[in-house]
């Protein structure tokens, strides 16, 4: 069924008793042309673009839990394309363009809200770094604006401008950045892919990858063997575990990142704000809760929950930026396990095993990448070669010394 104002009214008049499930609860078939492991945003987007852009519909997405149980439903929903490096900017900008048309494309309300993302700076050197980043963005045709303190006082009057230790000197604003309702992205892509014939198979854990003569031919799952013409991995956070089933070692460590939501408030925060002197960022959801986060906990973890010192650190950052936060009560917090790659950038590439393809290493910034990641991974699976926008995200870049390290931190996943 197509969703529209008329379908909404019709269902309302019928007492909302006639809604049907948004996608089929598919059972696994014996085999598919393409099997994608991982029903997060990236896996589902990949399946959708395989069907939509490449006409390949004999596709299954295999998810061990339920759609949206991974990071796609745990992140802090920020989208932006304010990157510095040439390998990154065009990719993330294409993603932002796809976000801008996503709801019409999927016929699904993902609550894409371009309320702006604002990075504050607190010193001359930080200002130089943000000017450079803004210039890099503009050279790539991406919007970026440098705001001085008077302009900031109009936009975000509640931040602590005259903080004795970290006075606010200005900010870099990307007006087209913003937030998106995260689980609606999973649901929207699942529904749209399902309508094009893709099987979205939930509660089906991949437990093994069958490799014959150097070639991946299918997966062992908790619901039996499934043959695959091609196999794509999109298991954010668990990429190392799943790739190890085919004997691969990856340039990735799994780390936990926490997120926090406060009680609902009246509208106070107009955009996404990042603190430049510590790791803290905040936005306000449409329900009114302040959504915020900071650093990863910093050690390998598959626990999906974090530790208290990080909570303290994040809250201290918040208080330094916005002292009024001290009056707000925290409602809940949670953690998600992410692939932290060795250079902080993702991998979309073939692997040394034939017919086995990898989409991994998204760190804490992969939500905004969802549409472009699906777009480029679908291209790779369909055409067997990298999409030009993802040309920098090769697996061999580490050994070859062509890393894409936005922060210049070196091979330390917990520093990116």
């Amino acid at each position, binding site marked *: 069924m197509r969703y529209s104002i008329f379908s909404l009214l019709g269902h309302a008049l019928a007492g909302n008793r006639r809604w049907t499930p948004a996608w089929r609860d598919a059972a696994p078939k014996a085999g598919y042309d393409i099997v994608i492991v991982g029903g997060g945003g990236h896996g589902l987007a990949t399946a959708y673009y395989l069907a939509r852009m490449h006409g390949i519909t004999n596709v299954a997405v295999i998810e061990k839990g339920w759609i949206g149980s991974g990071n796609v439903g745990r992140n802090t929903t920020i989208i932006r394309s304010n990157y510095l490096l040439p390998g990154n900017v065009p990719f993330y900008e294409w993603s932002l363009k796809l976000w801008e048309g996503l709801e019409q494309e999927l016929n699904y309300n993902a609550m894409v809200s371009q309320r702006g993302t604002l990075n504050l700076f607190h010193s001359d050197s930080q200002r130089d770094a943000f000017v450079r980043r803004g210039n890099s963005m503009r050279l790539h045709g991406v919007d970026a604006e440098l705001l001085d303190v008077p302009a900031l006082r109009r936009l975000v009057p509640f931040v602590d401008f005259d903080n004795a230790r970290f006075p606010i000197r200005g900010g870099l604003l990307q007006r087209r950045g913003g937030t998106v309702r995260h689980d609606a992205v999973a649901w929207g892509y699942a529904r749209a892919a399902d309508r094009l014939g893709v099987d979205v198979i939930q509660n089906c854990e991949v437990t093994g990858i069958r490799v014959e003569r150097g070639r991946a031919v299918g997966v062992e799952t908790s619901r039996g063997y499934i043959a695959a013409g091609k196999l794509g991995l999109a298991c954010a956070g668990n990429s190392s575990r799943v790739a190890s089933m085919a004997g691969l070692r990856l340039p990735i460590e*799994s780390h936990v990142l926490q997120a926090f939501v406060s009680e609902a408030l009246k509208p106070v925060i107009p955009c996404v704000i990042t603190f430049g002197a510590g790791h803290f960022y905040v936005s306000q959801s449409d329900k009114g809760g302040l959504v915020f986060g900071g650093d990863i906990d910093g*050690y390998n973890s598959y626990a999906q929950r974090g530790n208290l010192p990080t909570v303290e650190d994040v809250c201290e950052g918040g208080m330094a930026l916005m002292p009024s936060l001290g009056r707000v009560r925290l409602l809940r917090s949670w953690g998600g396990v992410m692939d932290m790659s060795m250079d902080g950038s993702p991998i979309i590439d073939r692997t040394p095993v034939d017919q086995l393809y990898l989409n991994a290493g998204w760190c804490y910034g992969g939500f905004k990448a969802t549409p472009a990641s699906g777009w480029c991974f679908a291209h790779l699976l369909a055409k067997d070669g990298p999409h030009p926008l993802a040309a920098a995200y090769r697996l061999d870049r580490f050994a070859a010394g062509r890393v894409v390290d936005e922060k210049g931190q070196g091979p330390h996943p917990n520093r990116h």
Partner: protein
Amino acid sequence: MRIPCPHCGPRGHEEFAYHGDAAPIRPDPAAAEAERAFGEYVYLRDNPAGLHRELWYHALGCLTWLIVERDTRTHAIRGVAEARANHAQGQAAQ
């Protein structure tokens, strides 16, 4: 999470700096295939869900490098030893 330092007793993990998997050992630069070996040493990790031997530095304590054996799913710590002893073993094994 508290790490039982052999010198200082159990201390909060925020006193320590984390340096990742303790398994990789610096390859011999003169060896054949040293380039490939260095690539793997610097970048590739097992990243297990389960027991992990990892380096922690007691930066706000006794300034000792430790090897902590920890379950990455539960943070339960099974053993702690000084990294120095392990390093000597690694060298011998090479």
